[in-house]
């Protein structure tokens, strides 16, 4: 059995770790509240945009626009949103796994537009090609950042350097449930966007000013950047939610370990007292 001093040392080290995890949990709880409020505020924009684009596409029928038709390049751009910090359980690895395990995304064809330095580390280790890195963005996502990324992507898309654009992020369902999600942004296949908007304003024929082709030319970049921005806000909320959970379980694990060690320590103490007593009694017996 370990000596009393060893047990004590081990216990106090676990105790100080527990204090750290507890503090981290509190911090991420506060951050989660903020990020959650932000994600909820940006949701209406995100959803309305999705519906509007859906209704435009379904009502305008067959438009032959480069954003809607696949080009020749078989390169696939993936915007992968992970975190800059670790200690968030499986948050970063799950997101990377989502991309690496997808059969439609073979390693040779994928170009990563990376956001989040933890994700980048894993992608690099696995040998993926990172085309661009915007890691600082996720600390404080602005709509402007989403616009900049969209412009860079759409330029490569129009130049034929990439043929498809995907978005990988962790969607925030609620505080305890975060689902890594992979979404196809471009080319937009009309079926994928259409589904949502059957109710409501069907029937009325939409007019465009300017013409539908030109309107789409303007709208699709806005659509892409709004989706990216929405993904940012959800990813930040998910990150903090994941960290809160991870730290919560770390704290309770530490508590369990401390309870076990306290028991061991008390036993060891009792043993040593008993032993001392036995020795004293034996000594007294010998004198008599």
């Amino acid at each position, binding site marked *: 059995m370990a000596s009393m001093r060893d047990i004590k040392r081990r216990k106090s080290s676990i105790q100080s770790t527990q204090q750290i995890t507890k503090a981290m949990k509190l911090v991420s709880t506060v951050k989660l509240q903020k990020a959650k409020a932000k994600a909820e505020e940006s949701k209406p*924009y995100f959803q309305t945009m999705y519906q509007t684009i859906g209704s435009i596409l379904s009502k305008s029928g067959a438009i032959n626009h480069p954003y809607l038709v696949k080009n020749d390049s078989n390169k696939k751009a993936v915007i992968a949103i992970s975190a800059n910090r670790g200690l968030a359980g499986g948050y970063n690895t799950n997101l990377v796994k989502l991309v690496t395990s997808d059969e439609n995304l073979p390693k040779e064809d994928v170009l990563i537009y990376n956001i989040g330095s933890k994700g980048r580390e894993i992608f690099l280790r696995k040998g993926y090609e990172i085309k661009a890195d915007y890691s600082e963005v996720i600390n404080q996502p602005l709509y402007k950042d989403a616009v900049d990324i969209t412009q860079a992507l759409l330029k490569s898309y129009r130049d034929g350097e990439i043929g498809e654009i995907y978005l990988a992020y962790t969607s925030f369902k609620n505080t305890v449930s975060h689902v890594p999600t992979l979404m196809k942004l471009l080319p937009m296949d009309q079926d994928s966007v259409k589904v949502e908007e059957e109710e409501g304003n069907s029937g009325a024929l939409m007019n465009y*000013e300017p013409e539908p082709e030109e*309107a789409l030319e303007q709208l699709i970049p806005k659509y892409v950047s709004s989706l990216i921005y929405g993904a940012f806000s959800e990813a930040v909320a998910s990150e903090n939610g994941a960290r809160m959970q991870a730290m919560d379980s770390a704290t309770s694990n530490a508590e369990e370990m401390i309870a076990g060690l306290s028991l061991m320590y008390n036993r060891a103490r009792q043993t040593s007292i008993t032993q001392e007593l036995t020795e004293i009694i034996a000594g007294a017996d010998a004198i008599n």
Partner: protein
Amino acid sequence: MADGTFLLKIINPDRIFFEGNASFVELHTSEGDVGIYPKHIPMTFIVEPGVIRIHTEEGIKEAALHAGFIEVLEDKITIMAESVEWPDEIDIARAEEAKIRAERRLSGKETGIDIAKAELALKRSLARIQLGSKR
């Protein structure tokens, strides 16, 4: 003038900027200035930077609307604004500075996309100044 009101929603990426009934709304689009009354035919416009005037029961509200698009339905108008500000959120000094910068760029000899960008910046700053100086 048509009777009644429509539901106007102005949404930007960070919040719902305005939601309420209005009887008339004026704004700039890529095809020119438009004013929309209720029962308009369904229409989608692209927004150009400028001042938007919302006629509500309490009076006319003005805001600087910089980019986005607008979807008009019979009784509902949705404006997806990438950037929109109330007059009291505008920083006039910054807008003046942006205007001067944009004018300088326009008078220079740069080509292509820079001019388009500078023109947009100029329009944005003008909209801000127009609104901000009224307050």
